[in-house]
């Protein structure tokens, strides 16, 4: 995540097989696909399939001479490919079946393990400890119990903007504690 935008040079080096750029490309979009598809409850194995096929197609398109007219929009191009792959793999003939014959998994748990580290847990614990009881409760209701925003507002007696601001501040505090390079600690 230590870069600020996609450039023509980045795309050219990716097409040419530069190992550093290829590694960045995969790591960067893997995380985004985990978030995007994980929020839809997709199983980890399905996400892996979508990601691998997306990466394969994007690189194949670039190597076939496909021009990316606006390099800064390269991420949107990857997103469009991923959306198509997801649709294709979701069709009945591609219905995802696990090796044990089931197609169910607890995606939330699997995907959390992508993001949880001991260091991050310590920092989040520190952020939570700094918060007033009510704010800590709001975060726990949201993240731990998966309550809807409406339900939190009703039960805790706060409005939606309060929750949004709280979430924004907690995220900033967390990032401050992790340092600028927090995403590299994965």
């Amino acid at each position, binding site marked *: 995540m230590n*870069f600020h935008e996609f450039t023509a040079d980045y795309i050219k080096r990716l097409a040419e097989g530069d190992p550093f750029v290829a590694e960045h490309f995969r790591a960067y979009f893997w995380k985004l696909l985990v978030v995007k598809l994980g929020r839809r409850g997709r199983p980890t194995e399905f996400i892996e399939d979508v990601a691998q096929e997306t990466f394969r197609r994007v690189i194949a398109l670039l190597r076939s001479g496909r021009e990316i007219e606006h390099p800064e929009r390269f991420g949107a191009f990857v997103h469009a490919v991923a959306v198509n792959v997801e649709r294709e793999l979701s069709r009945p003939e591609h219905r995802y079946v696990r090796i044990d014959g089931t197609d169910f998994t607890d995606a939330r748990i699997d995907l959390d393990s992508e993001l949880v580290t001991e260091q991050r847990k310590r920092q989040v614990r520190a*952020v939570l400890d700094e918060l007033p009881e009510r704010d800590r409760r709001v975060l726990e209701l949201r993240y731990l119990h998966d309550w809807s925003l409406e339900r939190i507002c009703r039960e805790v007696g706060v409005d939606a903007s309060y929750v949004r601001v709280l979430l924004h501040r907690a*995220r900033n505090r967390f990032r401050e504690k992790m340092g600028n390079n927090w995403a590299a600690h994965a």
Partner: protein
Amino acid sequence: MDHAEAEQSQAVERYLLGELTGPEREAFEEHYFACPKCAQEVLAGETLGANVRAVHAGRATADLRIPRPGRLAWLSTPPPKVAWAAAALFAVVAGYQGLVVTPRMETQLSELASPQPVARHVLRPLTRAGEMIRIAAQPRGFVTLALPLDVLPDFERLAVEVRDRGGTTVARIETAVPRRPGEPLEVLMPARRLPPGAYTVVVSGWRGGERTEVGTYPFTVEP
């Protein structure tokens, strides 16, 4: 959607809180794939959430401590030790209930009241050739074990036992005999009762006070 629009509409927060409509969500996802700033915000939010869950998992016991009594000016005379012990015990019980039991029950009730997918696994009798049935471990929810029953004499009822590798019974139920021939017997098991390991389901039939084993179904739960 551009970055200014995303900032103005608090798209990151609304996305993380699940407030965006389908088209809004699609538009924002397309944006943050192309916008490293927003992507970092989204990842930070997801990472925060994942770690809040992880922290809470370890906090349930860590927070289980006796609260220190505050300085109460009006209490010039210390109370008897018995009273402090009783208060401490009450605090432990109340704390445990408030911090551990109630949230856990809320979560469990919420899970039970919500529709949820159930993994169904058809087991194979020991007598039938084939590879061992392997099941992926689940941290929560339920799994259905479907047990094909080939021959069923006139039993009054069936007993189903799930045994671990050491032969210890981890679950046992008695149930009616399936009415239609060939219909598998289905057992709904809480997934947390099946941690990774080797298991055997033993089905027995009862008739006139006599028990007869009718099927053995080995399977493995994998991490």
